[in-house]
């Protein structure tokens, strides 16, 4: 029982990491109806930036927000340069472009930083603390706290600021929003910037566990897909809930299902993706979509 609780806590921590990346996917999906296949690679690159800052002697808690700002700017730059020219292109074109972007960023990171896995510092100790009979590590609790703060901040931004309001308006009704003076195209860029920043949190949180190298996010993005799909790909709340469910499920399956073990955890994510898409395509919190003619 105690072990189960422990596994659940560490599952929630992993889930927080998935949730950040899933939320990034949802932000871009809401802005332009697109799943950004490059989201994980963008987060990986940002994590390399964070490591470079820390290696240059910057304090972790200063490097962290600085990285988010850089990731934000980078996301905007990518949208302006790569996505803007094809804003109205068919969805397949956009998907292929983000896939190209993923490949490109992965290659660039390998080119600049090499493929040798690097240790990434964690501000949290691996010591454990006893909570209600379960031993939880400070590392896990720290990850949960950081993810929670970031997700809350995004929620506040979207729901309780004018910028968030105009972003949501532009996402739902671009034409009507233009008539209200909203710069819709800039809102898309802002969405990319925000997604990039949120996504990079997952990279920074996961790097101490997985070690930092260009392919670090390749599996994390699959878990994030699973989380976003499970939650309903247009729902920010769904991304968070989906992330936690996927994190806990994958963790428990790895420990308690002998045939899954460590190396088929990814297959659990695939099963979640396919199962949800086939059985309940709108996920837990998504609205039924109207089929366009």
């Amino acid at each position: 029982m105690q072990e189960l609780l422990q596994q659940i806590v560490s599952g929630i921590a992993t889930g927080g990491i998935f949730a950040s990346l899933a939320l990034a996917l949802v932000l871009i999906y809401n802005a332009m109806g697109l799943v950004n296949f490059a989201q994980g690679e963008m987060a990986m690159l940002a994590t390399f930036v964070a490591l470079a800052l820390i290696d240059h002697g910057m304090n972790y808690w200063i490097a962290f927000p600085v990285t988010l700002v850089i990731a934000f700017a980078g996301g905007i730059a990518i949208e302006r340069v790569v996505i803007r020219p094809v804003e109205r292109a068919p969805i397949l074109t956009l998907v292929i472009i983000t896939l190209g972007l993923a490949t490109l960023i992965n290659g660039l990171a390998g080119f600049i930083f090499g493929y040798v896995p690097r240790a990434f510092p964690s501000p949290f100790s691996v010591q454990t603390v006893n909570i209600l009979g379960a031993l939880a590590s400070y590392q896990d609790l720290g990850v949960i706290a950081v993810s929670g703060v970031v997700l809350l901040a995004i929620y506040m931004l979207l729901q309780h600021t004018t910028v968030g309001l105009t972003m949501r308006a532009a996402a739902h009704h671009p034409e009507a929003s233009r008539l209200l003076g909203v710069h819709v195209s800039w809102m898309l860029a802002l969405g990319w910037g925000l997604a990039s920043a949120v996504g990079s949190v997952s990279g920074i949180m996961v790097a101490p566990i997985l070690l930092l190298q260009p392919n670090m996010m390749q599996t994390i993005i699959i878990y994030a897909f699973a989380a976003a799909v499970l939650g309903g790909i247009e729902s920010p709340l769904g991304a968070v809930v989906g992330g936690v469910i996927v994190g806990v499920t994958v963790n428990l399956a790895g420990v308690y299902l002998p045939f899954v073990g460590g190396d088929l955890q990814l297959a659990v994510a695939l099963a979640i993706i396919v199962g949800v898409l086939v059985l309940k395509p709108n996920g837990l919190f998504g609205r039924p979509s109207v089929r366009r003619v």
Partner: protein
Amino acid sequence: MLQRIRNSPPRYWLVVVVILFFIGLPTVIGSFQASEWAQVLILAIAIMGLNILVGYSGQISLGHGAFMAIGAYASAILVHKYKMDYLVTIPIAGLLTGMIGFLFGVPALRLSALYLALATFALAVVTPSLIKRPAELTGGVQGIILPPIDPPPLASDAFTAVTGTAMTSDQWIYYVTLAFALVLFWLAWNLVRHRAGRAMRAIRDGEVAAAASGVNIAGYKTLAFGISALYAGIAGSLFGLAVGFVSPDTFPVALSIQLLVGTVVGGLASIPGPLIGAIFAYFLPIESNQWVPTQTWIPSQIASTVEKAGPAVTYGVVLILIMIFAPNGVVGLITAGYARLRRRLRGAADRDSGQMPPDPQTG
């Protein structure tokens, strides 16, 4: 007769020339190069399969490498466990993969293009770890090593008669691959010209309209998935044959991306496109890797990194640029250029004969 040949469109001549080129190629290049070109043809087959799916039926798969893996492992297991002749296993592997693809196409019907992309991409990422699991069947991480195959005497003798050298295993594999490629390209050409092809394109261009004109949407979409997987399966089987072994790492996500690059570069919904795309997707990373180390001004440390990172960077850049500037790929560029050239030539001829050229607006 002569008249008919003279009047046949230039592209038929081009097809004949290309086929003769590929038949004659191994007689003028070395055995190693023949094995490289065999890889190109294998890629071309897989890309043709993907092209039928993406270009003609409007569905997408970012996980076609997984279907190649199924075909390759099917052949390898039949050869390794059941001691079958490799050549016999190729069509079996193709049909098996085709059936799996067909079954995969059924749930795929329920998914929008975006979700399908997502699910197939996840499949591509997960495939290597799925392969490792039934280790007694697939050989686990090590994979399966395949016995080399020797060219049959008849082919060997014919080859020796032309070139004066003995035929190597690689050269024989090249010809096997070429035979499959010719048949599969011919089949694809027939498919897209006839009823099924028209139906698929109608679905791609608008499902509601296609349904209104009586096209069986579900049937043709799953059929497209099945055919597409069949191509990938045969390509995968040939791939195992050409490489001499199969292992989980033979089929990484990068392979699926390579196929997508080839499809996009060649041009969607085009028959010659996959061949051009395959040549590009195969030789681009190799050429860039050979070029960089020859440049003495590049520090060796960077050069070795480029070798690893180069293909990804170039693939990524190419994908993005093609989708932004030439969404119809190389074939699209060529046909657009050809049409423009012809219009200009015809315009010039019409001016010479004193006739008004047709108004491009109304024409």
